[in-house]
């Protein structure tokens, strides 16, 4: 049911390699579109900022058009514009923020520069309705691995822990390269792991039981590299499926254990998992198992909403508008390391 009394928010996301635009009213997603430059980055084994920025410029206006069409609304129907102000790649963020300012000025509507990470949590409201307060959120993607305590999406989000080195998705990409699997590494490792024995090789669990909610994945990656190198030197065949399964088990074991521990420590009964790695089948399965055992309700948006998109930014925009927060100024700056404690940039 469409609540036409709620403002229509257009969200624009360009923090990495996806140009995303979404149209949202309250907790309802009306339509969205995403243009990805991932194929252009594949041969480099990671996102090349300049390639991503060029692609954003090409895709920006066409993506806005397709999103408006998908939502069945006109640009003149839009009541406010929300845009990712950070964190993200400097040149990429700047394309989205420039476009958002132009649309806001031309349409005569307010502009809200919002936090990409909080957007990943807010997007769950489009799938499962209003988020209970408080909630814990685990954000896992190629660029981020964070545990958040979300008291209020618009005004009170606190960081509980972060990766101290590689993001989980980054570790997947690097291990995929070691195993001659394609980029991005998440899906091929997930597939290979299904054929392997997760207990055949026990890889280390970074920052396991260290009493923090921080993560570390670079040691794990090095352990895999060492294993692969030794097998190669000994002339042995590389057991790709077992390595993938053992690596994946190490990653999701730490992620889910720390997420559940964070819920327990803060007396929180709702856990949201979002970000590109939330599409991982083993992460979903183990999180469900451990949340059920701990009496925690698990919320994971569908994979299309977990990866970067404009709907998540519109969803957070709807929250800050509903909270009555003041719009960002026209000289809004991008912030490549915008802290998660700042859902709305001034």
């Amino acid at each position, binding site marked *: 049911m469409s609540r036409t009394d709620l403002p229509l928010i257009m969200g624009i996301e360009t923090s990495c390699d996806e140009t995303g635009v979404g149209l949202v009213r309250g907790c309802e997603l009306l339509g969205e579109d995403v243009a990805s430059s991932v194929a252009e980055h594949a041969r480099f084994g990671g996102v090349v900022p300049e390639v991503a920025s060029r692609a954003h*410029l090409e895709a920006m206006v066409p993506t806005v058009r397709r999103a408006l069409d998908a939502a069945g609304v006109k640009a003149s129907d839009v009541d406010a514009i929300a845009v990712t102000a950070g964190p993200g790649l400097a040149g990429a963020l700047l394309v989205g923020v420039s476009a958002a*300012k132009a649309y806001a000025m031309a349409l005569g509507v307010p502009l809200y520069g919002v936090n990409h990470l909080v957007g990943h949590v807010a997007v769950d409201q489009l799938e499962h309705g209003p988020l209970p307060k408080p909630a814990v959120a685990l954000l896992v993607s190629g660029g981020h691995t964070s545990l958040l305590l979300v008291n209020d999406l618009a005004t009170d989000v606190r960081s509980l822990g972060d990766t101290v080195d590689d993001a989980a998705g980054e570790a997947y990409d690097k291990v995929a390269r070691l195993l001659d699997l394609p980029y991005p590494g998440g899906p091929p490792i997930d597939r290979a792991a299904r054929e392997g024995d997760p207990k055949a090789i026990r890889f280390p669990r970074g920052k396991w039981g260290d009493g923090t909610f921080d993560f570390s994945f670079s040691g794990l990656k090095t352990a895999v*590299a060492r294993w692969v190198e030794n097998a190669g030197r000994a002339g042995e065949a590389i057991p790709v499926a077992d390595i993938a399964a053992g690596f994946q088990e190490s990653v999701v074991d730490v992620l889910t254990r720390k997420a559940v521990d964070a819920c327990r420590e803060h007396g929180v009964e709702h856990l949201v998992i979002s970000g590109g790695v939330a599409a991982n089948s083993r992460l979903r399965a183990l999180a469900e198992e451990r949340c059920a055992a701990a009496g925690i309700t698990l919320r994971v948006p569908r994979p299309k909403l977990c990866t970067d998109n404009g709907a998540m930014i519109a969803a957070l925009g709807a929250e800050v508008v509903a909270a009555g927060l003041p719009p960002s100024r026209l000289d809004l700056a991008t912030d490549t390391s915008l802290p998660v404690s700042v859902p709305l940039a001034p």
Partner: protein
Amino acid sequence: MLLLAFDTATPAVTAAVCTAPDAGAPDSVAVAASTASVDARRHGELLAPGIADVVERAGAALSDLTHIAVGIGPGPYTGLRVGLTTGLSLADALGIECVGVATLDALAFASGRTGPFIAATDARRKEVFWARYADARTRVGDIAVDRPAELDTGGLPVIGHGAALYGEVLGADEESAAPLHPTAAALGELAARRLLAGEELPAPRPMYLRRPDAVEPGAPKKVRQWKA
């Protein structure tokens, strides 16, 4: 005609509004308002307020605009894209045409020179973007990117920030290199004159002149082995 012009392909962030009677002569173009600030690191912050400022001082609203003209570079890419994204998005939202103007052409036009010269801007990495002009309105040949020492000036005066930066090599100083940066007033006037004369202008697409300098990865580097 009510034309909004801006350029972000140099350290200058500049915007202007130009007016002309509909179907007027090219000489009827006037600059109603203009602004410029030089800050190579704040294009994204300065452009939108600059546009709001010149439109207001021109006594107009964005919805009154009939055309947008934007500098298409070449210039440092991050800044360049601020102007192009803004131009394309504004034109889409307002339902009006957006045309491109080479940033060096706007710089050349701003010089008002009547004889031949070279215009050069900073391309970073010890290079300049440059082109040859017969006079302020007439470019001769294509725009190129080169090291200053590789540039055959043929004894012509060299203007622009690129000339001032490499004054010893290019035989210029701050004074002889003026104007250092393009102005949106010049860019807008040039675009409006060409539109009124029925000339075709470039599409609002960036002139990069270089590929992204990414390299494909080689074999994974060796990890240190533990000694048993």
